[in-house]
């Protein structure tokens, strides 16, 4: 067993239940610096739960979660808040504050958590908005933006404190293929230029294979495959094979309501 701290994120034997349902079952996972780990799995397989565990928003029923040398599961609130500043999160539905315009949304972490002057904040916001190509929408409210634009603003907000780790929850869900590629390229660019580590949760094959340096598949609460994309594609695991081909025949639907419905 390695010492905590050599990985950016480490999950040790994490189990998580929601009432009676076991969402994660004894999951162990390590993320190395500058990895782009794509976590795949069906809807409701615990992918988003995984991200919330890393952020310390959810507490696992068993096991421990580390971010660098910090054991997230045992930190006190104040320390946890400090650690979270090094982690950026891009939500599936962007989660921009609807009462603030784009500029104020991106500036929020800077205003609340740093002592920077207004001028410094403005220049950082400008830089990050430029990075995601949203510099012309500064004054717009979130409700005036399209889904793709919101997601880009959300990415700018996640980047504003220069995090070491960025978590993406379904970054390309609900976006058209072109915008989805733009977002994918942004993610790759960021990790390559700024040496950021990222965990991306998705079930969109195309974007998964474009982004990933490593892929993991969650099935019934366990990680059943964890490999670089080229080896992942050749996996012989029946679940992975079925997932990649999108077939209705195979172990994924067995015994579920969906399987009964297709018969």
């Amino acid at each position, binding site marked *: 067993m390695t010492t905590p701290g050599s990985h950016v994120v480490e999950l040790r034997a994490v189990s998580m239940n929601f009432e009676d349902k076991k969402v994660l079952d004894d999951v162990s996972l390590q993320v190395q610096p500058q990895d782009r780990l794509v976590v795949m799995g069906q809807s409701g397989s615990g992918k988003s739960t995984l991200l919330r565990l890393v952020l310390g*928003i959810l507490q696992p029923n068993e096991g421990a979660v580390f971010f660098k040398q910090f054991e997230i599961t045992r930190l006190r609130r104040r320390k*946890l808040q400090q650690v979270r500043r090094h*982690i950026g999160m891009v*939500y599936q539905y962007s989660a921009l*504050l*609807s009462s603030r315009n784009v500029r104020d949304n991106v500036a929020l972490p800077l205003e*609340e958590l740093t002592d920077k002057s207004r001028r410094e904040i403005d220049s950082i916001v400008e830089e990050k908005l430029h990075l995601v190509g949203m510099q012309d929408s500064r004054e717009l409210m979130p409700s005036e933006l399209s889904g793709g634009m919101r997601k880009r603003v959300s990415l700018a907000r996640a980047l504003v404190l220069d995090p070491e780790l960025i978590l993406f929850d379904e970054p390309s869900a609900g976006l058209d293929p072109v915008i989805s590629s733009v977002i994918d390229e942004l993610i790759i660019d960021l990790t390559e230029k700024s040496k950021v580590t990222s965990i991306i949760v998705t079930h969109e094959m195309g974007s998964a294979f474009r982004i990933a340096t490593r892929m993991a598949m969650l099935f019934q609460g366990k990680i059943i495959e964890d490999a670089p994309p080229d080896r992942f594609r050749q996996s012989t695991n029946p679940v992975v094979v079925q997932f990649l081909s999108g077939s209705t025949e195979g172990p994924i639907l067995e015994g579920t309501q969906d399987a009964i419905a297709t018969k």
Partner: protein
Amino acid sequence: MAEEKSENIPANPVLVVQEIGEVGENFFREVGSMFWFVVHTLDETWDRVRQGRVPFRAASFFRHTERAGVDSVPLVGLVSFFLGMTMALLTGYQLQRFGTERLVPGLVAIGFTRELGPLITGIMLAARIGAAFTAELGTMQVSEEVEAIEAMGIGPLRFLVAPRVLALFLLMPCLSTISNIAAIAASSLISRMYFNIAFVYFVDLVREALLIRDIITGVLKSFMFGLLIAAIACYRGLTVKGGAAGVGNATTSSVVTAITTVIGVDTLYNIVYVVFFP
């Protein structure tokens, strides 16, 4: 189904006790979580102050004070004015039979400063502002905005709850005072029109009847109501579950809980006050 139940209950006194127990347990659990909610909010805010930073921005605080306070003045003033008139009229006609209608000014003044002013203001603010706080925070909770704030490392209790609670806490006494003034002004009109009490005499009568401690009691009560209404509204908002319907349920529940609590606490306060400080 209903028949089955009515047969079951007398046969199973254990079940009845169990159900009562469950209701009681849920009630105390709610009260407990609300208590800890307030404690955590204070704790998070205090933590921030100790780091030498402002707990929330003045702009955010003043936005809430404006909405909760300044914008509520017409409603509170108007309703209290009508109530003051009604109270003066009703009591005046009764007292007139004994020739003691000059008790009306004191009666309305004491009644409002000690009791009705804070109570009516509390009920109106629970409906007007409590509902708004719950719906607003509930929607933010449902759209993951609250979680996003937390994920950034910003304390959502300090950032969202503290300015709202403080705004209502500080503004309730001001609004109660407006309510008192409106009601007393209304009763002075009625006194002048129906009971031939001149304005100067009215003021004398009020000053004679009203004690400083009546005013202090009312103001203390108002602070307490403000805190209760805001805390209940924010708690209900941040604990919303289940989408748009959840927000609706939470808002209803927030208003009902806040009004019930305000009236309940008022009664308790009066009992304690009368028993211990007669």
